[in-house]
C-alpha cells in the first residue's frame, strides 16, 4: 500500500469486503472515523486506523458505539465526512443517535456488518437479521436509506454511493453488509479519483443574517451551515421550526416530520439501485440481497440452463425498497421467492407489494451460514431437477 501517493488507493487489489468498504469511504472523502471493535466489522476500523492519519484524517476509538455515532455526528456538523462501522449489538446501541442524525439532518454513513442474533448470537457467522431494525430501529417516524452490497467490489462502490446520498439528502445512510461479504476476500478495482460522481452538502447561499437553518425549497433538503462558519448554528433533537428553534407543538411537528420522510421518498433517483436478471419472461422471480444475492444468482442461472423461466430481482438499495421496479419485474410472474438469512424480514415488504396476487415463498434461515443455491432452486419448484443432477 502506498498512501503517500494520495488518499485514494487506485488499482486492482485483493481485499476483504470490510477493507473495500473503508477504501470506498476514503474515496468518497471520508476523513473521520469513530468506532468500537466488534466482530465482524473490526476490519473496517482497523483499515481506517491505518489509513486516515496519513491522509489528514482522524481515527478515534470511542468507549462504545453510542459514543461512536455521537462523535460521527459531531464531526459531520463541523464539516468533515464521517463514518462508523459496527455489527448487530453495536447497531442496537446506535439507534437513538441515528434518530438524532435523522432529526438534525446530519449526513453520515453507518456500516453494519451483520452477524447472527439476537443478542450476542453468532459473532463470527453470517446473518441478515438487522434489516427491519435498519428500517425501523430508532424511535419515531423516519425514512432510512440502506444499501446491501453483495461483494467487496460492491462494498466499495455502495459505500461511495452512501456518502453521496448522505451529503445530497442531508441524512444518515446505512450500508447493511453481512459477515460473509465483509470477510470475503476478492478482487477490488479502485478507479482514479474523480471517476465517481459524489455529491456534497449544500452550504448556506445567504449571509448569516438571512440564514434560516431549516428553510427548504421544492428540493426539501435544507442548506447546512457548519460549526465555526460564523452562522451561529442552532440544531436540536427537539421538534424544531424553520429557524431551528425548539417548538414542541403539533403544528411544527406536522411540518417537520412529513418533510423528513418526503425528502427521502421523493428523491428515489438519488439512491435507488437494483439488478435485474432474466426477468422479461420470468414465471418465478427470486428476490435476494447481500450475500444471498450471490446464491440467488447461481440458482437463477442454473434454472435457466435447465430451461426454467426464473428471474432475479436483487435490490442494492433495500430501504426504501425499490417497489415500482419490483412490481414491474414481477408483473407476469406466478411465484415470488424471497431468500434472506433471517426468519422473514424484507419478505414482509414483498408480501405487502404482491398483495396476494401470487404466492410468495420464503427461504429463511436463523443465521450461521449462507443460503445455498439449492434451497433457492427448491423454492422455485426446481427441487427434482437439482436432485436428478446430483
Amino acid at each position, binding site marked *: 500500500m502506498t498512501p503517500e501517493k494520495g488518499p485514494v488507493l487506485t488499482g486492482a487489489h485483493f481485499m476483504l469486503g470490510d477493507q473495500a468498504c473503508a477504501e470506498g469511504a476514503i474515496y468518497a472523502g471520508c476523513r473521520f472515523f469513530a468506532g468500537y471493535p466488534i466482530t465482524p466489522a473490526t476490519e473496517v476500523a482497523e483499515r481506517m486506523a491505518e489509513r486516515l492519519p496519513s491522509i489528514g484524517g482522524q481515527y478515534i476509538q470511542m468507549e462504545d458505539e453510542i459514543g461512536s455515532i455521537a462523535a460521527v455526528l459531531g464531526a459531520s*456538523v463541523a464539516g468533515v465526512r464521517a463514518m462508523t462501522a459496527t455489527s448487530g449489538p453495536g447497531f442496537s446501541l446506535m439507534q437513538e443517535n441515528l434518530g438524532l442524525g435523522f432529526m438534525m439532518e446530519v449526513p453520515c454513513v453507518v456500516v453494519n456488518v451483520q452477524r447472527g442474533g439476537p443478542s450476542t448470537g453468532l459473532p463470527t457467522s453470517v446473518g441478515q437479521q438487522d434489516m427491519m431494525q435498519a428500517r425501523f430501529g430508532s424511535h419515531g417516524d423516519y425514512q432510512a436509506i440502506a444499501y446491501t452490497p453483495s461483494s467487496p467490489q460492491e462494498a466499495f462502490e455502495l459505500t461511495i454511493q452512501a456518502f453521496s446520498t448522505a451529503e445530497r439528502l442531508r441524512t444518515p445512510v446505512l450500508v447493511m453488509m453481512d459477515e460473509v461479504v465483509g470477510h470475503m476476500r476478492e478482487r477490488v478495482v479502485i478507479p482514479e479519483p474523480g471517476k465517481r460522481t459524489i455529491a456534497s452538502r449544500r452550504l448556506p447561499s445567504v449571509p448569516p*443574517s438571512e440564514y434560516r437553518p431549516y428553510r427548504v425549497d421544492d428540493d426539501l433538503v435544507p442548506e447546512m451551515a457548519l*460549526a465555526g462558519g460564523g452562522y451561529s448554528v442552532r440544531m436540536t433533537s427537539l421538534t424544531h421550526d424553520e429557524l431551528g428553534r425548539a417548538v414542541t407543538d403539533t403544528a411544527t411537528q406536522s411540518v417537520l416530520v412529513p418533510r423528513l420522510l418526503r425528502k427521502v421518498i421523493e428523491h428515489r433517483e438519488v439512491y435507488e439501485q437494483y439488478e435485474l436478471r432474466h426477468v422479461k419472461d420470468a414465471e418465478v422471480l427470486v428476490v435476494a440481497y447481500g450475500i444471498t444475492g450471490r446464491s440467488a444468482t447461481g440458482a437463477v442461472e442454473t434454472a435457466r440452463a435447465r430451461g426454467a423461466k426464473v428471474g432475479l430481482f436483487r435490490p442494492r438499495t433495500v430501504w426504501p425498497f425499490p417497489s415500482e421496479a419490483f412490481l414491474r419485474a414481477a408483473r407476469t410472474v406466478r411465484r415470488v421467492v424471497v431468500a434472506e438469512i433471517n426468519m422473514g424480514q424484507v419478505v414482509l415488504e414483498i408480501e405487502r407489494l404482491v398483495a396476494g396476487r401470487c404466492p410468495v415463498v420464503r427461504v429463511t434461515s436463523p443465521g450461521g451460514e449462507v443460503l445455498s443455491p439449492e434451497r433457492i432452486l427448491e423454492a422455485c419448484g426446481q427441487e427434482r431437477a437439482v436432485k436428478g443432477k446430483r
Partner: protein
Amino acid sequence: MTPPSDERRVLTPETESAPPRHHPLDSVLRSEVLPHIWCPGCGIGVALGAFLQGLDRAGIPLEKRVLVGGIGCSSRVVYYARADAYHTTHGRAIPFATGIKLANPSLHVTVFAGDGDLFAIGGNHFIHAARRNMDLLVVCINNFNYGMTGGQAGPTTPHDAKTTTTPSGNFEFPFNLPQLAAAVGAVYVARWTTLDVRRLRDCFTEAAGKQGFRFVEVLAPCPVSFGKNNDIGSGLDEMDYYRGLEQVWGTPGGLPSRIEVREGSDLSGTDISLHRPIIVGKFVDRARPTFLDNYKAVLTAKGKAP
C-alpha cells in the same frame, strides 16, 4: 448578527411594542429566543451569565464558540448563548463535542449539561474524554436532582436527601465530582456555587484559556424540585443554605490549607452532604498533553503525519 424581525415577533409578542431593553450580555445572547424556560429561583441562568462573561474575558471569539448540550434543564443553556449550538441526546453531549473538536481543532468547544446527564447516563463518556484529555470545557450544573422531569434522585443527590423517587430519603451515596474528575485525568477542576458569581466568572475565564479536559462544577439551586422536596424554600433560601455550609478550599475551615492541589492530592473531603461543609474552589490545575498533541506526536515520530 441582528435576528430577523419576525423571529422576535413570533416569540415575544408582548415585547414588540415595548421600548428596547438592553442587557450587558445582549451581544453574546440569542435575545430573540428569550424568555428562557428556567423556573423562578433557578441557578442555571446565573451560571450562563458567568460563563459568557468568562469567555468574553478569555477573548474567545464568537465565531469560535461551540456549545453542546445533552438533555435536561442545564443543557438548554445552548439555546440562549450566541454560538454554534447543538442540543443533542441525553448523556451524549461529550462524544458529540469530541467529534466537533477533532473535525475542527480551532474551535473552542464547551459541553454544558446537568449532573444526571453527565454522570448517570453519560458517565462513561465523561471518564473516557477526561482520560484522553480531550480538549473540552465541561460544565456541570449540579442541582442534586433531575429537575426537568420533576425532581427525581440522581447520581449527585446527597445521602438522605428527599426526591420524588427517594420519598424516605436517598439511601445511595452521591458521586464526589471533583475527586472523580481529578482521578480520571482532568487538567482543571473547580467547583463554585451560583452565589460565587465573580469567582465563577473568573474560573471560566481561566478554564477557557487552558487546553485539555477542564471540568467546572456549578452548584445551583433548584427550588421547584429539589428545594421543595427538602423543605429548603425558595432559590435564595437554598443558596443561603449552601452559603451557610460553604467553605472555600484553602481558607480557614476549608480543606486543605492551600489553594491549589498538587497531582495526587486527596480530594475525598470534597464530597457533598447537606449536613457538612461544602468545599468550593479550584482543586486541580495541571498540564498534560491533549489527545491531539499525542496524536500528532506519535504520527510525527513514526513518519506517518500527512
